[in-house]
């Protein structure tokens, strides 16, 4: 049946609202701060085949899960009756979840006896069992030591939870009451959606609903296809490192080459390291979720998030047995915050490099990377009433990546999670035996740039009125290398920092009437850097310092207007030292005006850029070039397309850098420096083997690229524009 376009628009809007509504129902019921504050959940409506129609915007990384789960249920329950009032759950990363904490529920939607769609919700549970409280395993090699897997099981019949299966599903958890409440949240949401589907079918008929669903997927796909087709062909690369597999402090590479060919995007992960003997892997579902989540953010900013429409336009190439395509029995308990997160991170970086070349609206979506790596702690102990508790702190918002035209969001949260929120200090102090000494925006954590990366968070906590020793599990990434790379000459954000201070004078200082709020004021007598995964006991008198990294910058920081740099210094977002060394603005000083001092300082910095090019000599092989075709401009390069060739010039001085498909970096001058140059926080990272590489125009010394790379890593050639 075909449906008239007015009915189409009426029902399209209604289904979109219903999907938002069911996420709200689930959040209202949920007792888990990971759900109601961090918004680590996703709701989706799907067609009878399980293809996503609408996914909620809360956590883009989970966008594909419900679709996967629905398809797995359709396949595994083939031949068995699926009735109105049934619902299924699973947390199996080989069946649709990303890690075991993501418990998904899907339910078929019926009109009388006709299947008219599926609905589903995936929500993060505080604890699902396994050796490590909170579920992010520490010190275990494979999936058998992690939270138990729940393969898809029909837990609801006639809209009633089966008590035996509920007991089984929550039995291994340290937080069974929370998990029970969340199960009811998912159920209430699915049931609400069935009521709404029933109303639609009663008014418009099941045929109309089904016709609208397929029309919607077709139309959305067509809109995305057009967007992709309008982008230039070529290849863009991005890489990141995953820290510490939970057992050994080893770094793993996730490498991506994104090729754009006509109407297709091909995400090829060749060069990615093999799966790890620890919990940081993800399955193929985590891999695809990472890719799809970033593609939704980038390409569908004003379109419905329809995974059923988007997925067929993307091709994902990856070897089974690699860290983001791990095979059973690899450990996957860190999946969302490790390999899947890293996949989304490189996908967004590569898509940003591509979309910066868009002549349409996609250029406005370009962002340098946000700090992607989760950093937080799981606390396990006894509360003041003597009851055991397990809880997570999620109060370290990272910095947002800079955009072309504006700074990144300071303490912006997490990428792909617009509704993510942190928690009040008072809320944590009320439920955990902790006292915060301070919590603030972390100076110098955002990547320098013409547009600055947003800053992250810095905080210190100490145990307070402890009834019994406190067990703490710390999980982080971005410890060895700043995760949030800059774009087009912008610097990366800082690394993430975790310091254990065993002999603090904090308590004495309080007693003496002072507030210990600065680590440089010697209240730390001993500080130990904690690795990216650590489990420790914390006693009174000790304290933990965390710094969550900032976002990457965009463009050469020497081009940032002086007043913006001065304002950042006054607001405590940039130190005077960084204002001087990276921005070339000597805020303090007495010789001449600030403008004069800055001009002088910026000339000095430019003169210090130089050195050998990674490729051929500047301009070599570049012929005289007449611009007779398109001209597209990014922050770093001017791309000129004529009938015979595509040429890339320096945006600053117009020097010809390279012919397509050569990367302009072959002609840029490379300067290597210690990573501490980018942010003073970087000395607290495990960054001995990482260096900063700046790439500048050989004539005007304008920065076009800044990479943080391991010393032994080859140059990252990340820009290959194919002449059409």
């Amino acid at each position, binding site marked *: 049946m075909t449906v008239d*376009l*007015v009915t*189409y*628009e*009426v029902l399209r*809007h*209604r289904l*979109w*609202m219903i999907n938002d*509504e069911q996420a709200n129902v689930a*959040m209202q*019921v*949920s*007792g888990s*701060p990971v759900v*109601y*504050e961090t918004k680590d959940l996703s709701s989706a409506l799907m067609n009878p085949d399980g293809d996503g129609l609408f996914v909620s*915007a*809360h956590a883009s990384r989970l966008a594909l899960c419900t679709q996967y789960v629905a398809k797995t249920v359709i396949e595994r329950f083939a031949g068995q009756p699926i009735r109105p009032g049934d619902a299924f759950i699973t947390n199996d990363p080989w069946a649709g979840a990303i890690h075991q904490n993501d418990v998904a529920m899907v339910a078929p939607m019926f009109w009388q006896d006709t299947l008219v769609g599926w609905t589903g919700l995936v929500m993060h549970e505080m604890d699902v069992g396994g050796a490590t409280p909170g579920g992010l395993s520490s010190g275990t090699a494979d999936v058998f030591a992690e939270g138990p897997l729940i393969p898809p099981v029909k837990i609801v019949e006639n809209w*009633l939870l089966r008590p035996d299966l509920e007991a089984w599903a929550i039995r291994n958890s340290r937080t069974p*009451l*929370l998990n029970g409440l969340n199960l*009811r949240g998912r159920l209430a949401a699915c*049931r609400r959606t069935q009521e709404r589907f029933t109303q639609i079918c*009663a008014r418009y008929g099941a045929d109309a609903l089904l016709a609208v669903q397929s029309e919607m997927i077709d139309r959305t796909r*067509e*809109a995305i296809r057009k967007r992709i087709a309008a982008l230039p062909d070529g290849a863009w690369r991005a890489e990141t490192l995953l820290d510490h597999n939970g057992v050994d402090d080893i770094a793993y590479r996730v490498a991506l080459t994104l090729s754009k060919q006509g109407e297709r995007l091909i995400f090829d992960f060749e060069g990615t390291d093999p799966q790890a003997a620890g919990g940081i892997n993800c399955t193929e579902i985590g891999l695809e979720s990472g890719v799809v989540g970033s593609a*939704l*953010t980038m390409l569908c*900013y004003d379109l419905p998030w329809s995974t059923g429409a988007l997925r067929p336009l993307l091709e994902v190439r990856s070897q089974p047995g690699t860290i983001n395509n791990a095979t059973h029995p690899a450990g996957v308990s860190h999946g969302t915050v490790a390999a899947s997160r890293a996949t989304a991170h490189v996908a967004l970086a590569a898509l940003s490099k591509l979309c910066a070349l868009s002549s349409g609206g996609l250029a*406005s*979506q*370009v962002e340098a990377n946000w700090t992607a790596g989760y950093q937080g702690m799981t606390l396990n102990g006894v509360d003041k009433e003597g009851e055991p508790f397990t809880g997570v702190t999620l109060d370290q*918002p990272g910095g947002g990546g800079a955009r072309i035209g504006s700074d990144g*969001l*300071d*303490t*912006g*949260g997490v990428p792909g999670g*617009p509704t993510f*929120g*942190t928690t*009040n200090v*008072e*809320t944590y*102090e*009320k439920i955990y035996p902790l006292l915060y000494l*301070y*919590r*603030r*925006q972390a100076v110098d954590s955002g990547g320098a740039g013409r547009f600055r990366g947003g800053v992250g*968070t810095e905080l210190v906590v100490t145990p307070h*009125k402890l009834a019994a020793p406190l067990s703490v599990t710390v999980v982080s990434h971005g410890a060895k290398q700043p995760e949030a790379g800059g774009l087009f000459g912008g610097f990366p954000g800082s690394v993430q920092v975790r310091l254990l201070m065993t002999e603090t004078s904090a308590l004495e200082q*309080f*007693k003496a*009437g*002072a*507030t210990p709020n600065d680590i440089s004021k010697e209240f730390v007598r001993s500080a130990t850097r904690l690795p990216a995964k650590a489990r420790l006991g914390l006693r009174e008198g000790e304290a933990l310092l965390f710094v969550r990294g900032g976002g990457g910058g965009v463009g050469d920081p020497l081009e940032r207007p002086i007043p913006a740099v001065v304002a950042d210094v006054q*607001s*405590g977002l940039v130190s005077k030292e960084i204002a001087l060394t990276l921005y070339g603005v000597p805020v303090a000083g007495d010789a001449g005006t600030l403008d004069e001092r800055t001009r002088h300082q910026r000339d000095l910095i430019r003169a210090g850029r130089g050195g050998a090019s990674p490729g051929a000599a500047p301009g070599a092989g570049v012929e005289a070039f007449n611009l007779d075709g398109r001209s597209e401009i990014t922050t770093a390069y001017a791309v000129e397309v004529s009938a015979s060739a595509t040429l890339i010039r320096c945006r600053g001085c117009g020097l010809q850098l390279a012919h397509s498909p050569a990367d302009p970096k072959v002609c840029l001058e490379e300067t290597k420096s210690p990573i501490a140059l980018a942010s003073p926080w970087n000395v607290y990272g495990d960054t001995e083997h990482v260096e900063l590489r700046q790439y500048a125009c050989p004539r005007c010394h304008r920065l076009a690229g800044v990479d943080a790379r391991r010393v032994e890593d080859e140059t990252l050639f990340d820009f290959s524009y194919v002449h059409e």
Partner: protein
Amino acid sequence: MPRHIIGIDVGGTFTDCAVLKDGAVIATAKSPTMPGAIDEGVMNALAVAAEDLGLSLREFLQGAESVTHGSTVVTNAIVERRGAKTGLLTTMGFEDTIIIGKAIQKAAGLSERELTNQAGLRNPVPLVPRHLIRGVTERIDRDGDIVAPIDEAQAIAALDDLVAQGVEAIAVCFLWSFVQARHEQWLVETCRARHPGVYVLASHEVAPLLGEYERTSTTVLHCYAGPAVIAYLGRLEQKLAQAGYDGKLLIAHASGGVTTVGDILRKPLLMLDSGPASGVVGARRFAAVGGQNNVICADMGGTTFDVAAIVDGGFLVEEEPVIGQYHYLLPKIAIKSIGAGGGSIVWSDVGVIHVGPRSAGAEPGPACYGQGGQAATITDVDLTLGFLNPGGFLGGRKLLDEGLARDALQRVGDQVGLSAVDVALAAFTVVNAQMADLISRTIIEQGHDPRDFALLAYGGAGSIHVAYLAQELGLSTVYVSPSASVFSALGMLCGGVTHLTQRAVTLRSPFDSGADDQLAGALAELRHELTASFSQEGIAPGEIAFEPTVHIKYATQPRAIAVPVADWLATPDPGLARLSGQFEAAYSKILGEGSGHALAGFEITKCSVTGQARNLADISAAPADRMTTRALTTTLQRKVRFPDMAQAVDCPVFRGGDLRSGDQLPGPCIIDRMGDTIVIPAFAVGRIDAVGNVVLELENGQ
């Protein structure tokens, strides 16, 4: 001799006035709002109303028993960032709390649609710049124990420094001050003594509740708005006095009711959104008079469509509303909005007709205004279909150009191969469905079925669409008030002086034996506090209706549900188990059967008491003997293309002023009134009820 009472509401475009005497409306008036001189616009509207009654402004004001006022002055100050230069003193180490804003400010107030645009997210322009935020050495823990005493010398230095920077207002917010207020108290007293000209508030005074971000944000918002409100109300009181008014000025507030100027000066945010909220207060009165327990309030204006609900005779409350991307802890009447109004733009995309959320606004406005607007809007749709009278818009003060409307629609039609009329028909259905979707979501989220509700329409643009909305929702009865276009001004006369006070109280199950006494004690204290406020205003305890409420949730949940506890308190030896039971019943009503989970335990988070003095006016149904039935005819007609009819028809048109109680109006027909147009399609029958409402009965429904 009974005197009249006056309600006056400042909206974005018009300042509206309603005058009541003996419970009946004797005059209404509209005058343009004057940006920058809002009090002038108020005096103008009063003059228009006086003229309407054949009185001089002096006679009109001298004869008034009270003047009740609502204004956008606080909203404007905050949204346009034109409030006071404000400083903040807070616990050392937590200066950035209000800047970090829990990382939720970037999305605060955005619809789900806008959230997908990650690169479009922005943090708010700060109300207090970072250099005017100072840390004070002090620290209190969760039990109220003093970890570090306040460093008085350092605190005074910080305070004096802010004043030296020229701040007009100072907010003071320390961690855990709602448990132990000693440090905050000392500092605000010190500030008031040292700098009497500075407007200062402490967080424990305005929001003694858990959560330092929201508490700080609330205190800062109050301070930011305070000086502007003092200046504005001072000017207005002076102007009223000069014009001869010697009575009391009452202010409408967003929690539903009115209060005194003195109360507003202590809590200026109460004035936020008082106009839309007053409309809902009016709707509640309308419901009570008409014997309707459940009413959907639908307010369609120029740019937005606002929905609120009267459920079981009361309104719904939002506990943590947002203004200008800042959250604040001041319960207000819950009103949901979408960008669907007369100015909403009609556009097309891959063959599909869409409406909004972009609006043509007042400038350039709809194409038919002839002010240069090129985009087709819903007003152009309503005109092209024949619903609007081109010569009768806003009482004939604005002429509408049908040709421009049609051209604009045709430009959209050219992209999709449709005629202008077909585009108009599609857009009319699409915008109605969007409004219907907002209504169903609002009602269903409260656990109710929209079909159990009557629909009350007000606002300038709503009554054209309301019958179709009702049809889409399966409703059978629609009301359009005779004062629909000045409904907020009328609504603020329908309540009484109302105060609300609240306090954090944390009690967890299993409850101690003394817990119910502790709760009852806290409620008694709050009630005592309110009684004292009322008595300062000359209102005796016997005239006040108190509504005590306890907020309860399953132990770990984020949001509590407000459970009314008057009955519970009246029971001898009530016990908290019974209260938990009441909570569970309310919970499963909203979220569905089986969603409760008693095993998770219960937690009481706060208690609050609302006190309402008697209503300003006793509005009740007029005597039935005014109802007469007569054969109604009209010679007026215009060509109208109803979406539910195959072609355009010659449709009878009635003038609102010609209609009387008891008149019957079978559809299709149209009523043209001074401020609005009511469309009665073929599937509905209209009648005028005893108090002048136009009532539409639908054949309906589904």
